[in-house]
């Protein structure tokens, strides 16, 4: 499922949410313009769920049956999530084999593909200022390194 949060890059055309209705209207763009088919669930205007999970703009989490976190990532790679689920569900299916399979935890650095041009186009779709402000942020990040 897709959990819709605040607009990470507000602009003239798709702006920061000032009401829940505005947030719902923006969420509909995900379904109607981008074509997301998964269920879209909308967080409240204050971002309660977003805050509970860490406020990052495009995290992915997997919650196991019964409510334990089994996967967290600070950015999203669908391929990585799918590969994880295959391993995890495979491991769960094998567990009845008396003591020969057990769970363990890892933390790891992974790499994801980034389509910068497509991202810039999405910024422009939100409005020219979304693009300009992102470019401004790039200057800030560069100055920090």
């Amino acid at each position, binding site marked *: 499922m897709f959990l819709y949060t605040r607009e990470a890059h507000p602009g003239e055309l798709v702006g920061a949410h000032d009401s829940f209705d505005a947030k719902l209207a923006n969420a509909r763009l995900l379904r109607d313009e981008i074509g997301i088919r998964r269920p879209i669930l909308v967080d*409240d205007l204050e971002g309660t769920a977003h805050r509970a999970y860490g406020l990052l703009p495009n995290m992915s989490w997997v919650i196991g049956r019964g409510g334990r976190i089994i996967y967290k990532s600070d950015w999203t790679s669908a391929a990585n999530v799918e590969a994880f689920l295959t391993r995890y569900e495979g491991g769960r299916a094998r567990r009845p084999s008396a003591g020969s399979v057990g769970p363990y935890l890892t933390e790891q650095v992974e790499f994801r593909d980034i389509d910068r041009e497509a991202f810039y186009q999405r910024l422009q779709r939100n409005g020219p200022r979304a693009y300009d402000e992102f470019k401004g942020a790039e200057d800030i990040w560069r100055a920090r390194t």
Partner: protein
Amino acid sequence: MSSTGYNYERFDRYVESGEEMAEFASFPGHLHAGDPAPDASLTVLNDGTHVRLSDLWVDRNLVVEFGSFT
């Protein structure tokens, strides 16, 4: 409460304030695999009904991607 507010108007100010950096820095230490998942009440876009995450994770592994239009 943050200096720019949750629904910030300007991404560059949000970065400049250090909030964005603080959020990324906190993430590794905040919630881990193995921990109980925070529950939350959400609005289903297609029909406007309310659902809790705990209603959804009761019988499946729940993949949750957070995001916005960009």
